[in-house]
């Protein structure tokens, strides 16, 4: 007891077991069902694209950090999450070099040059998807979606890119049979690798909410806004051909609402801000889907809302305990 070598540090002296690795690991676990369903519907090529995308994101992150003489942080698993999300956002018809180009844009341009994890102001995977859509439109939109392993394509088995494209192009009001509905919910429709199976995505989203990785606020307000707004446009006769309940299970909405709009770095931290983020994403998504040139609006809506996040956070600061109003 004579010569104790004691550590002196500031309080608190205990820390929770939570860590960045656990959070990112939970996101990977939550994405597993959608990834597995993606491989089931789109075949081995889907798995290949996921592996290439994840590997290139990790390598670009490590390479950039080595080159700029920073500590290499790929073990935090965040690059793997970005890589997987990017692959899930690609059509299975993508050439194998496409996720490599996308991975470079996501990790180097969108994430690392702004300071790495937590500093990116837009979602890296979505930024890369937008970059690829703008640079290689023929590989990433429209006809790119016509290939599916199972051969089931759209409403009434009509050959079209995706159900949303079908609705956008159709002059008539399409009738959705119960089997169309089941196909949409389980993912047996056209779309990117990871966006089609709504059930798997909702399951993963619930896992993240239960594990307290994300809050329900962004996904629930996002999906509800799309449902309500689409219904309003439909029943006021502005867009009578829309199919509100069917549409929330199609396109990138579930993937976007649970996994992309909730990206920590590019979404608000305040509770009220998160609701605003969800409503904003829902509003822009619906407007693009109904009035825009693209049949699909999830990516751009989230990217646009990402840019508003600092502003939202600034004006939605929570009221503090015992706050005294000025001049009261």
């Amino acid at each position: 007891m004579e010569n104790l070598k004691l550590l002196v540090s500031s309080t608190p002296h205990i820390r929770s077991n939570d860590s960045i690795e656990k959070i990112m690991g939970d996101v990977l676990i939550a994405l597993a069902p959608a990834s597995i369903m993606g491989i089931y519907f789109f075949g081995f090529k889907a798995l290949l694209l996921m592996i290439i995308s994840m590997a290139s994101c990790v390598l670009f992150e490590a390479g950039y950090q080595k080159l700029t003489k920073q500590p290499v942080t790929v073990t935090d698993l965040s690059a793997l999450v970005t890589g997987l999300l990017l692959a899930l956002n690609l059509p299975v018809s993508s050439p194998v070099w496409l996720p490599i180009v996308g991975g470079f844009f996501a990790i180097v341009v969108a994430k690392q040059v702004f300071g790495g994890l937590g500093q990116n102001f837009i979602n890296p995977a979505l930024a890369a998807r937008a970059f690829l859509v703008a640079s290689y439109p023929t590989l990433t939109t429209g006809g790119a979606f016509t290939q599916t392993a199972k051969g089931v394509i759209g409403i009434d088995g009509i050959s079209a890119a995706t159900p949303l494209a079908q609705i956008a192009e159709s002059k008539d009001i399409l009738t959705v049979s119960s089997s169309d509905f089941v196909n949409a919910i389980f993912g047996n429709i056209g779309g990117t690798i990871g966006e089609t199976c709504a059930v798997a995505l909702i399951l993963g989203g619930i896992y993240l909410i239960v594990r307290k990785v994300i809050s329900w606020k962004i996904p629930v307000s996002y999906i509800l806004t799309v449902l309500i707004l689409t219904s309003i446009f439909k029943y006021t006769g502005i867009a009578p051909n829309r199919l509100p309940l069917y549409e929330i299970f199609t396109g990138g909405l579930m993937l976007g609402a649970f996994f992309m709009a909730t990206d920590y770095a590019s979404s608000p931290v305040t509770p009220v801000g998160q609701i605003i983020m969800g409503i904003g994403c829902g509003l822009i998504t619906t407007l693009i889907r109904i009035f825009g040139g693209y049949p699909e609006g999830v990516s751009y809506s989230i990217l646009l809302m990402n840019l508003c996040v600092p502003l939202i956070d600034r004006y939605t600061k929570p009221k503090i305990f015992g706050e005294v109003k000025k001049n009261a």
Partner: protein
Amino acid sequence: MNTQTFKRGVHPPDGKKYTNEKPIDILMPKEGALLAFPMSQHIGAPCSPIVQKGERVLLGQKIAESDAFMSSPIHSSISGTVKDIKPVLTPSGAMVNAIIIENDAKLEEDPSLGKDTNIEGISRQKILDKIKNAGIVGLGGAGFPTHVKLNPPADKKIDSIIVNAAECEPYLTTDHRVLLEKTERVVKGLEIMLMLHPDAKGYIAIEVNKPDAIEALEKAVASKSKISVIALKTKYPQGSEKQLIYAVTKREVPSGALPADAGCIVDNVDTVLAIERAVVKDRPLMRRIVTLSGDAVKNPGNYQVRIGMSFRELIEMTGGFSEEPRKIIAGGPMMGQAIFSIDVPIIKTSSAILAFTEKAAALPPERNCIRCGKCIGACPMGLMPATLNSDILANDMAAFEANHGLDCIECGSCSYICPAKRHLAQTIRATKRAVMAAKRKK
């Protein structure tokens, strides 16, 4: 059970199982032991010695006092001889002038002790004088002079007196044991406080992780119409004054104000017991109850010790360490102070001594903020700790103040919950000090 609580907060592992079934064990210092009585063991003006080197002092004799309103006298907890008056190291890390007394183990009492024990029709002023003369301060850790707290300015109407029995700090079990073993005396102490504020109601607020104490208290207050037991949800920092007042009364103490502004007085369990002892038994504050725990301690337990004993003597008397300690904390793991030497005296505010091994003391490295917002979900004051931290790193003091950095209660919930292990509470505390110092300079 219907429980009350505050908003947000965290759930650290409570570590109470090591000591919550250990009855309070009385430890007396050995003959020849040197006890140190620092002149500042409270908030307010330090005391001045009123004894001299070489003088013999008796148990319970007043040895230091101050004329200041905001201060509290100090009594010898043993009988013996004043060996020296010199600065000593205290648990806070500061050197403070102290009276050093060598214990003669005779426990010869000062003749003034226990003389005035009649409390029939006792006047309000006399209660306050007794509490003041007994040197009672907030024993929960803050050390606020109790007679000042119990006597707020006349314009502050007190309608609730709350005994803080939350004991939300992990590992600490002294309040729990006191409530079980001295239930009636704590209730008596609260009744004395209610005599000072006849219109007020008394509450004993306790977390539901102490069901045996709740049962004992409910039995003890069954016949007392003005006192009720409030069951609180087990959550940290439930025992923080503002959060406790909110849990019990649903009132928010305004920013920058005191509990009295919300009509409340809050005192810790051991403090209420000290009030009972001072008023009913006419004995000053000379002992306190300390939880000794942590994975490096051989015999964790709850010990009633003499104020002035050294940490080293307490640890040695209980069998010492089981393993090499790497970190020793005076107080709880959330808000207690890490100390660099065990040759410091137990003072009025020493609620616990925790010793942890290398494994338990290891601190994870700090990493980038990932903006998960968990700190916002944890802050009991509704602050945005990560935002304050980035204000601090940008050296933007105006933004720090605008974001209410000065309202931080330093509970450490943000640092506890942070998955990136950022130094949130640490930087906010340091910056609070700097901003307040700069304001005083102006």
